């Protein structure tokens, strides 16, 4: 059989998401950002929301998200994406608005904007990528860095007495009455990707119903920052990140999951 006999429409099992541009991703090979971008864009496409969606890019590795997502996007100052999203959503309540933020952006410098947007119940969706490190600036300690974890600013490991505790911001915002759906997911295996996509789709569906803020954390690897090959970094994530940042729904239909 010739290869040309195989490349046929009826045999198509996968194609590049229409809503991803042809620009080469700036992420390190093995990083979870590319997959997270793809599933968000697949959902926007499948829900037919491209012409109605405004995305907010953060400061961090995903600062250039607007180069890859083929939708109208705004690049926000470090940590301020939820405030920027508030400005958009309040003036265009019928549009779909989401932020895509890393852990330094969302859980350190932007903690106030995160908590207050959640507490006001802004009808936006927050996609939160947590890799426990500042990736873009070269692997410094993040608020989410685990105890004992080595980074360029905790070179001897995170000492809780000196540097404070890793922050479970997702559990924190789930306590607030303004959040309606809060979930923690991962994208390191096909099964995890399917689950994450389901959760993110649910978040965007709830936004269409104006029920409150929806928040999906994606625990991801940073093979460059963690100084591990991609596969090993995923193993390390499963063994170290998941026990602390447990996957699954945290709040559903406005009620904390017991």
């Amino acid at each position: 059989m010739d290869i040309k006999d195989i490349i046929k429409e009826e045999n198509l099992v996968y194609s590049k998401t229409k809503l991803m541009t042809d620009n080469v991703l700036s992420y390190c090979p093995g990083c979870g950002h590319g997959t997270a971008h793809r599933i968000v864009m697949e959902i926007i496409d499948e829900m037919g929301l491209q012409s109605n969606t405004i995305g907010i890019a953060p400061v961090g590795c995903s600062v250039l998200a607007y180069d890859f997502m083929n939708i109208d996007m705004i690049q926000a100052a470090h940590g301020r994406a939820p405030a920027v999203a508030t400005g958009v959503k309040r003036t265009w309540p019928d549009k779909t608005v989401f932020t895509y933020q890393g852990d330094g952006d969302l859980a350190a410098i932007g903690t106030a904007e995160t908590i207050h947007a959640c507490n006001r119940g802004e009808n936006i969706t927050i996609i939160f990528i947590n890799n426990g490190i500042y990736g873009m600036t070269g692997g410094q300690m993040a608020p989410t860095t685990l105890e004992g974890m080595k980074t360029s600013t905790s070179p001897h490991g995170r000492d809780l007495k000196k540097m404070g505790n890793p922050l479970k911001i997702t559990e924190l915002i789930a306590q607030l009455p303004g959040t309606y759906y809060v979930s923690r997911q991962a994208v390191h295996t096909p099964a995890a990707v399917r689950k994450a996509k389901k959760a993110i789709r649910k978040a965007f569906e709830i936004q269409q119903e104006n029920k409150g803020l929806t928040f999906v954390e994606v625990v991801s690897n940073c093979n460059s920052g963690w100084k591990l090959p991609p596969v090993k970094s995923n193993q390390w994530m499963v063994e170290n990140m998941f026990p602390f940042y447990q996957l699954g729904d945290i709040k559903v239909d406005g009620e904390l999951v017991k």
Partner: protein
Amino acid sequence: MGELKLMKGNEAIAEAAIRAGVDAYFGYPITPQSEVIEYLTYEKPEERTGMVVLQAESELAAINMVYGAASTGKKVLTSSSSPGISLYQEGISYIAGAELPCVIANVVRGGPGLGTIQPSQADYFQSVKGGGHGDYRLLTLAPSSVQEMADFVELGFEIAFKYRNPVMILTDGMIGQMMEKVELKDPVPRWTDEQIQEISGSWATVGKPANRERNIVTSLYLDSAIMEQHNHHLQAKYRQMEAEEVRYETFDTEDAEYLMVAYGSSARIAQKSLTLARAKGIKVGLLRPITLYPFPAKPLLDLVPQLKGILSVEMSAGQMIEDVRLSVECKVPVVHFGRFGGIIHSPEEVLEALEQKIIGG
């Protein structure tokens, strides 16, 4: 003729915004300008025009809400006072870099630091010269009456959208708090989605239809060659503002041998000093810059041949005086006078400074 009302300057900004079809106000309370958001929340503009009013959790959030809404082509207003404007500066730099229109009122109080809640003009540098990082300029309007507080909201949005640039209304606690008669214009409706499309559709992020490229609002250009190009583009815009947007007013300059330069509340005080001086036979005039950026440099230079000296009057230790000196190219002596730290100078003090520092100096 519009409706006549007795209002505080801060209230006039708020009412004028509703009537000018402003889409949103985001702010955070700070003395001496909290009446802006208090008036707006009391008036329920969401019922009058559909205008959104939201009290943010901080100045950082407020200016970034402005950034977000302005990114979508909406007319967005905010107001704050000196320490709050310091916190706005990051956002203002992003807004200028991303070329977004908006109007920001700074009702100045004395500083530095937490300072005082009394009026001051010591925010000239942070308002007129940038304040945030990078090479950018704010179109800066300086009202000297409650009437102008109202009028400059509409004017501010007109020029903000003309240049896609933030406009600052630089006022102070005196104009913000004092009550005067103000003629309010008849309300105009907010722009429809179709009008926003027509006016700002080429850049505003309102959702990407199939028939156009995506719109991106950003101030990030990692390639320095492109960043330099973007800066050249911004500079060309600022040169156009300098050519087209200079606004000022003169009093008794025809035969003047001496000149006072003053803006905002200091200009109101200097008008009285002018009357007192003329009664004593002193041939003095007054130039009131209405735009502080662009500064009325040429009108000032044109007066130089007839002048023996200039008194730059401002409620600061001397900030605008730098622009006055640059404008007159060292061809005539320029001396500063002003009380500061929340003290308002009297007309007599200004006259005394004129007599001692300029005429007798």
